[in-house]
C-alpha cells in the first residue's frame, strides 16, 4: 500500500495566507479560510512551513501579530527561488520530497517549483477551501502523537540548536540529553500510532510492511507474535513512540518480521538499541534469532543497522533477504541512554550503564 500522504504543507504569504502584499502595505488582512485550514492541518498532525518572498523580520512580525507564527516550522522568508526554499524545508524535516505540498497564488511560483521539484504537489491559493478534502491531506488516524507532532518537532529544533552550539564529541553531547528508551509490549491504544508509523516510515523500515490496524490487533493478541513499541524521552521532552518491532516466535527460534524506527531519531542510534534488546531477549530464551529484510531504494540504512549489530545474510532470493543474528555480539547498551524494558513475561529490567 503506498497511498501518498502529505506530511508538510508549505505556504506562501502575500495573497495566499493574507490578502495584500506586505512590502507594499503593512495592513494586510488574514484570510479566514486559510486560518481554518492551517488549524485543522495542525490538528491532523500535518506540519506546516512558509516560503515567501519577503523581508524576514516584518513578515515574522506580522505572523506573530496574527497569532499564527507558532504553526510554521523552518519558515523560509527570503528572496531566493522558492524551489530552493522548499528543498531546505525538506532537508530540515527529512521527509521524502513527494510528501510536501506547496500553496501559492502565483502560477509563476508554482511552475518554478514544479519545474525544479516535480514531486511536490502545487496548489493554487484559489483552491484553499478544498485542501481539507483532498485525500492526501487525510491521515488514516489522528492520534495523540499527531496532535502533538508540531510540538515534538519544536523539541527537536531545540535539541538540534543545543547540539550545534555544543563543542565536543557527539557522544558526550548525547550524554547530556538524559535519554530514556522504554520498550513495552504494544497495547491497543498504541496501535493507531503503530499503523501511522508503518505508513509514514520508509528509511528505517526493514521490510516496508504496512500493517493495518486490524492486522495489528490480531498480532498483539496472537500467541505466535510479539509486538513491541519503543518510546524515547530526553530532557527537552518526549519524542513519542518512535519504534516498533513485530517478532514471530516459534519454539526455539524467533523471526523479526518488521523493525521500524522513526526517522526523526535516526541519529540517536535507537535502531541498534532495539536490536540489542531483541538479541538479549532471544539469548535469554535460548532462541535462534532471524530477521526478514526486503531491500528498497530507501532502507539501506536499516540494512547497515542490522549488519553492524551482528546480523549476517543467510539467504537472498527474489528480493527477500533472511538474516541471522549472532547472539554473542549483542553487547551492551550505549552509555548515553537508559533502557527500560517493561516486558512482563520475563524479568523487569532497568538497565543503565
Amino acid at each position: 500500500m503506498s497511498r501518498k500522504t502529505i506530511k508538510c504543507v508549505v505556504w506562501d504569504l502575500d495573497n495566499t495566507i493574507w490578502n495584500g502584499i506586505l512590502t507594499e502595505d503593512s495592513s494586510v488582512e488574514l484570510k479566514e479560510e486559510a486560518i481554518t485550514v492551517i488549524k485543522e492541518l495542525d490538528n491532523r498532525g500535518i506540519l506546516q512551513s512558509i516560503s515567501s518572498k519577503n523581508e524576514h523580520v516584518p513578515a515574522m512580525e506580522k505572523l506573530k501579530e496574527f497569532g499564527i507564527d507558532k504553526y510554521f516550522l523552518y519558515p523560509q522568508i527570503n528572496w531566493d527561488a522558492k524551489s530552493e526554499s522548499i528543498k531546505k524545508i525538506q532537508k530540515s524535516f527529512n521527509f521524502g520530497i513527494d510528501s510536501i505540498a506547496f500553496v501559492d497564488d502565483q502560477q509563476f511560483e508554482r511552475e518554478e517549483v514544479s519545474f525544479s521539484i516535480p514531486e511536490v504537489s502545487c496548489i493554487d491559493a484559489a483552491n484553499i477551501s478544498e485542501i481539507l478534502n483532498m485525500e492526501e491531506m487525510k491521515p488514516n488516524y489522528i492520534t495523540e502523537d499527531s496532535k502533538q507532532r508540531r510540538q515534538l518537532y519544536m523539541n527537536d529544533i531545540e535539541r538540534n540548536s543545543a547540539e550545534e552550539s555544543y563543542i565536543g564529541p557527539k557522544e558526550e553531547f548525547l550524554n547530556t540529553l538524559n535519554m530514556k528508551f522504554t520498550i513495552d509490549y504494544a497495547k491497543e491504544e498504541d496501535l493507531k500510532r503503530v499503523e501511522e508509523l508503518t505508513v509514514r516510515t520508509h528509511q528505517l523500515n526493514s521490510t516496508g510492511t504496512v500493517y493495518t490496524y486490524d492486522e495489528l490487533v490480531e498480532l498483539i493478541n496472537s500467541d505466535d507474535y510479539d509486538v513491541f513499541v519503543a518510546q524515547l524521552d530526553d530532557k527537552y521532552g518526549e519524542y513519542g513512540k518512535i519504534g516498533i518491532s513485530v517478532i514471530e516466535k516459534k519454539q526455539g527460534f524467533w523471526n523479526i518480521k518488521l523493525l521500524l524506527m522513526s526517522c526523526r531519531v535516526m541519529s540517536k542510534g535507537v535502531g541498534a538499541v532495539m536490536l540489542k534488546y531483541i538479541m538479549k531477549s532471544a539469548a535469554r530464551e535460548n532462541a535462534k534469532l532471524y530477521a526478514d529484510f526486503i531491500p528498497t531504494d530507501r532502507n539501506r540504512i536499516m540494512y547497515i543497522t542490522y549488519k553492524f549489530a551482528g546480523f549476517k545474510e543467510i539467504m537472498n532470493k527474489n528480493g527477500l533477504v533472511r538474516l541471522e543474528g549472532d547472539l554473542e555480539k549483542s553487547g551492551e547498551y550505549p552509555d548515553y541512554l537508559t533502557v527500560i524494558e517493561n516486558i512482563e513475561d520475563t524479568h523487569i529490567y532497568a538497565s543503565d550503564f
Partner: protein
Amino acid sequence: MNIKEEVRNFLSRFVGDKTFEDSDNIFENGLANSLFAMQLVIFIENNFGVTMQNEDLELENFKDVNSIVALIQSKLN
C-alpha cells in the same frame, strides 16, 4: 591526497578535535551509529567511485582507518 588522507579527512569532521590513530576503533563497543555509518558508506562510494555490496557491509571493514583503507583498495583493484 591519498586514500588514507581522504578517509581521515572525512572522519575528522565527525570526531571533533580528538586525534585518532589509524588503528583506533571508531565505532566504540561495536555500537555503530547507523546514520554515521550510512554517511561513511555514501562518502566512500561517491568519493572513490566504488559500490559497497551487501557482503562488504560488515563492521570489521569499517572499524578503523586501516580497515576502511583496505576495503577501498580491494574495491579499486
